C-alpha cells in the first residue's frame, strides 16, 4: 500500500513483514537513508535484506528508549550469543551507529571469559597458525589463559593427563 504520509517510511523485512517507521528512525539507518536519497520519486517500500521482523522489534524498542533519554535501559540479555550475533549483523547491515556500538560492546562482554576455540567458532574463523607458531604465541601469552573464570581450551583439556 502506498504511503501517503511523508513522515512514515515503509520497511519490508526478509520475512515479509512491513514496518511503518518514523522518518527520524529511518534516518538512524544509514543504509536506508542512502536508498531514500538516491530514489528520484517517492519510494513506497524499502526492502531490508538480512533484517527480520524480530530485529525490527528490538530496533524500534531501542529507538523509543533513546528518544526518551533512556537508552541505557535497553537490554539484549534475553538473546543468546548466536541471536545477539545475528542482531548485530542486521544492525551492521543497516549501518546504525549508536546501536552498533551498544551491540559490539554487548558481544565483547559475552565473549570476555570465553575460550579461543569458542571465539573461532563464533566468528567462523579457522586457526591459520602452524603448530610451532601456535605453541610459541600460546606460551608467550600464557598468563591470559589462567584464571578460574576463564573457559578452558578444548584441545588443551584433552592433552592434560
Amino acid at each position: 500500500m502506498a504511503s501517503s504520509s511523508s513522515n512514515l517510511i515503509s520497511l519490508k523485512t526478509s520475512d515479509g513483514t512491513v514496518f511503518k517507521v518514523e522518518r527520524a528512525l529511518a534516518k538512524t539507518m544509514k543504509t536506508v537513508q542512502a536508498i531514500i536519497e538516491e530514489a528520484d520519486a517517492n519510494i513506497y517500500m524499502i526492502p531490508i535484506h538480512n533484517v527480520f521482523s524480530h530485529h525490527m522489534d528490538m530496533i524500534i524498542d531501542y529507538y523509543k528508549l533513546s528518544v526518551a533519554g533512556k537508552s541505557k535501559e535497553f537490554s539484549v540479555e534475553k538473546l543468546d550469543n548466536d541471536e545477539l550475533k545475528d542482531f548485530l549483523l542486521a544492525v551492521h547491515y543497516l549501518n546504525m551507529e549508536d546501536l552498533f556500538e551498544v551491540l559490539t560492546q554487548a558481544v565483547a562482554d559475552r565473549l570476555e571469559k570465553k575460550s579461543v576455540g569458542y571465539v573461532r567458532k563464533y566468528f567462523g574463523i579457522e586457526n591459520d597458525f602452524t603448530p610451532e607458531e601456535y605453541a610459541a604465541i600460546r606460551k608467550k601469552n600464557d598468563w591470559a589463559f589462567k584464571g578460574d573464570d576463564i573457559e578452558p581450551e578444548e584441545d588443551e583439556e584433552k592433552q592434560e593427563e
Partner: protein
Amino acid sequence: MATPTTNVKKMKMVSSNSNYIPDHLSFSILSKLPVKSLKRFSIVRKSWSLLIQNPNFINIFRNNLISNSHPLYGGDGDVSLVLNQFVGTYDWNIYLISGKKFEKKVKLDLPLPFHLPQVGVTPIRVVDSAINGILCIYDCDGVHTTTVLWNPATEEKIVIPPGHAEFQSEFMTQIFPHGFGYDRVGDDYKIIQHVNYYTIDDENHLLHLEDVMPDPFWEIFSLRSNSWRKIDFDMPTIYSIFNSAVYFNGMCHWLGESDTLLVSFKLCNEVYFVTPLPLEDTQYDDDFVVSLTVLNESVAIITNWKNTTSFQISILGEFGVEESWIRLFDVELLSTIERLIGAGEKGNIFFRRDDGELVCFDLTTGLIEEIGIKGERCWCQIAIYKKNPHLIGDKQAISFPANA
C-alpha cells in the same frame, strides 16, 4: 516474496551467512574487550595477532577504555574532585573542585586536630582516594600519628584509635598508612598500615636494628570492630609518600621497593599480589618518576623523566603478571611537567607543571586546562570525590553498584 516462518521458530532464526563476521566488525568487538581477553584472543588467527599491535587499533582500544564511564562514579553528575594542596610546611588546604573548567572551588575547613600547627615535615595526607565520599586523612607530628575518617558533606569525623605501635625513647616509631578502602564482602571500611622502628645514623640514614627494636609489622583496622589487628605478611612497603597508592574496587594498591613493584592487597580476604613494573634498565633511576593511578577500571602507571615534556601510561592486564602490562599512551606535551597528582573521570589526568600550576590533561582531546590553583613541589593530590550525605557506616551510604 518470502513466506513468514512460524512463530515458534521466530527467535531462533538466523540469516544464512550467520557464521561469517566481516573483519572490521570483529575488530570493533575486540576493541571493547579488557586487556586479558584481548591478549588471549590474539591467538585466534594471524591477522588478529597483528591487529593487536596495530597503532590505529590501539588508538581505538584506548579511547574505548577511557571513555567508558567509571562505574563507581558514572552518571549522576554529583561527582567532583578533592584536592589536597600543599603550599608550604605548615600551609595546606583541601578543596572540593567541580565544573567542566574547574571553576567551582570550595575550600574545606579541616576537622580538628589538623588545625594545630605541626612540627614534622610530613604534610597532611589523604590516603589513596575518597571512598564513597569519605576522606581518610593522616598526619604525623614527628612522634604521633593521627588518622581520621572524615565526611566533608556531613562533617562527621571518626578518629581512628591507635594501633599496636610502641613508643620508646630508645628508638623512633614510624607509622605509615598504606591504604584506605571498602571491603564489600564484610561491609566494612578498612585501613592497612605499616609500623617500623628505626634510629638515625650519622649520615641521616634510617636504621632498623633488629636486636634493639621490636620487629616492624603490618596491621589492619576495621571500622566495624573499631580495632586494629596485626597481620603477618612480608609485603614491600611504600617507597615515596605521594601518588604511589590508590584504592579501587576492594583492593588497595601501592608502589614499593623503590617504585619497582606494585603491591595489590585485597581487603576482603587479605590476599595480595606483587607485580614487577615494566621498567627498562635505564629507568631504575631517581630521576625517573613512576606514579600510580586508576584509569577507569584498570590499574595504571604514569611514568616520566623529571622535567621533561613527555609521559607514558601503561595499564595492568593481570595482577602478579609482569608481561601483562600494556603500554597505552606516549604523550608529548608542550610544557614541562613535574609529576602526576591524580586522575579524574574519563580521560582526565592531573599534573603539577613546572611553573607550579596544577593542570588537567584530557587524554581524549589532548587539551590542557589549568585548575587555577598552584601547588608546591609534588605533594599535592587529587582524587575523584562523590558527595555522600549519609553517616559513615550507614547501610544506604554505600552506593557501589552490585557488580563493582
